[in-house]
């Protein structure tokens, strides 16, 4: 852990990477232009490849494969099921399966139009881009490192999250171990009966190990019970509940189309709710002192990483409705996606995070050491 120059090899503050990933996801969610989404995906992949620490599992590949699967699935659904978009450019026609009158809104088979296929692909591509952005943040800064920065009031959540995050890998681990043990005893580890016999010991042992992890975290101070007065604790809880409720309702108000009734529900309530929830955290944390052991520093590379993702996201939100931005690709009538060169330049900003950040330490060592 270096306190020297910011660009010496070190791990970036995890919240910086997560803010970058969330900003990228927001960018992806504001547009269905396939070219812009492709830019987002390639930026995320580039930055991950450039700055991922050696030895961390390659999570991004899982998200990429998941994204491809999503696109393929939506494509098949759009081809087979006929409801929704109708187009005029028929690509080919599948034999139609006659359904009873009850299901008259569903159509299986029939003519497959380019409009419908393209709409499904654009939609699926948007979801893939969001997943890849979050996957990149996941690969660059493991969620366990982020948990250290959870506010003290939420230590219950933090412990639960760590247990949940470690449950699945340990499940896989235990499954392999139990299966090897059964094979050593002469059973064939593959039949259906075997799987049924595997389930209970595997679930049991992985749950036990997760609880051990939680206990060890608590003994290290993650789950310390703070002796606050009853009144302060109640105020904290009430603020949390009201704040979260307000934020959720406000989010609903912002996302639905604005009419008379929802105008009051929108941004004001969202901001008010978020402020209240923040106040709750502050109230709770004031008497809980945590030691600052090996804190990640927040230097200028972190701020730059935050800005290069948040600025384009804010820009896209602001110019969302403007026609010239080319954020929405019209499928009916069919047209090539229009792309604004300035928007392209702005969307290249997140890729800068690969170059303005310090190299992770193990990777710098491996690269610096003579081969």
């Amino acid at each position: 852990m270096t306190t020297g120059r910011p660009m010496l090899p070190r791990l970036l503050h995890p919240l910086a990477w997560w803010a970058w990933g969330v900003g990228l996801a927001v960018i992806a969610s504001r547009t269905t232009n396939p070219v812009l989404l492709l830019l987002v995906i390639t930026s995320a992949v580039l930055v991950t490849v450039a700055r991922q620490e050696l030895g961390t599992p390659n999570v991004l590949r899982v998200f990429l494969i998941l994204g491809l699967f999503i696109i393929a699935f939506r494509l098949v659904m759009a081809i087979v099921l006929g409801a929704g978009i109708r187009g005029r450019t028929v690509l080919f026609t599948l034999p139609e399966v006659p359904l009873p009158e009850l299901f008259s809104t569903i159509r299986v088979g029939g003519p497959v139009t380019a409009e419908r296929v393209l709409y499904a692909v654009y939609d699926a591509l948007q979801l893939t881009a969001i997943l890849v952005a979050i996957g990149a943040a996941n690969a660059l800064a493991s969620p366990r490192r982020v948990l250290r920065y959870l506010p003290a009031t939420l230590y219950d959540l933090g412990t639960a999250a760590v247990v949940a995050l470690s449950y699945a890998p340990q499940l896989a681990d235990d499954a392999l171990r139990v299966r090897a043990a059964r094979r050593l005893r002469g059973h064939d580890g593959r039949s259906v009966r075997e799987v049924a016999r595997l389930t209970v010991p595997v679930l049991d042992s992985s749950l036990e190990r997760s609880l051990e992890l939680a206990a060890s975290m608590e003994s290290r101070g993650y789950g310390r019970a703070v002796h606050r007065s009853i009144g302060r604790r109640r105020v904290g809880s009430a603020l949390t509940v009201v704040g979260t409720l307000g934020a959720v309702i406000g989010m609903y108000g912002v996302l639905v189309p604005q009419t008379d009734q929802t105008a009051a529900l929108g941004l004001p309530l969202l901001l008010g709710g978020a402020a209240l929830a923040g106040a709750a955290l502050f109230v709770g944390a004031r008497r809980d002192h945590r030691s600052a052991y090996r804190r990640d520093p927040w230097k200028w590379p972190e701020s730059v990483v935050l800005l290069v993702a948040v600025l384009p996201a804010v820009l896209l939100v602001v110019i969302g409705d403007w026609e010239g931005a080319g954020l929405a690709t019209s499928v009916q009538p069919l047209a090539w996606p229009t792309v604004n060169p300035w928007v392209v330049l702005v969307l290249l900003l997140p890729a800068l995070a690969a170059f303005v950040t310090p190299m992770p330490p193990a990777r710098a060592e491996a690269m610096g050491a003579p081969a």
Partner: protein
Amino acid sequence: MHTAYSQRRRVVGLLVSLLTVAFSLGFAAPAHAESGYRYWSAWAQKDGAWAFATKAAAQLTPADGSVDGWRYQVSATVAPAPRSTMAFDAICAETPAADGKKRVGLVLDFGRAIDAADPAAQIPAPAAYCVVAEPDATSADVLALATEVREDNGMTCAIAGYPAKGCGDPVAELPAGAAAGEEPVDVAVLAIGTAPGAGAPATSSAPTSSAAPSTSAASAAPTTAASSSPTSAEKDDEGSSFPWGLTLALAAALALAVAAYVLNRRKPRPVTPEVTRQPKVIMADEPTLPADDDTTRRS
């Protein structure tokens, strides 16, 4: 003394009251103004009068000799019908029947000045088309055959390019006179491929002067037939301007992908320590091996 039970009751009571306040804030409809929507509604002619279409246009199959209608209007609950009940015989008088196909009449009413969202927009004159279609064509197919349709997620947003923007947008307050009685209009019967003629501009008239030019046939079309040709369903390019944005974006994506690939190739693999290998078990029929260290052998 505060027992646990009474504490819980207090918290629950607080939560419930908060929830009621929040929901009543949101859903108490303001009583002063009525809001509505501005959209295209689909109609079917039955016995000389218009009946609101019971299902979505994509699920209704009009019979040979029937008339479909579309009306653009602003309304809250009850939508006004197209302002002319032209019979099938009048619309399809000049289109002969074709073997194995059906003829369906189509009436498009683009609305009054008061229905328009944009005060400066030119509202096209009402038009009627006689569409010759496959026997299993749905109402949506019939509409698409006659003129250009813009849809968004299954909902018909614009017909023949009107309105230029928007799709079933909500309206905060219905304009005065929106629900007033309407006068019937003359409808021009057009050949397929001709755009509807220019009607009265939205700003000029009082609500009752819905007099559209009642000319007939193709002479009413100021625009060329090619612009609304139903066969031009290809991806249309933007004329002669070079797509700078598209090229730039694709080039940038390619550059990023290549950079990612190159960096991946150059990434150092993690150095694993040498694992001590098990000594090889020498079977009886194998030739005896020289007594070397196993770790120096590369098999």
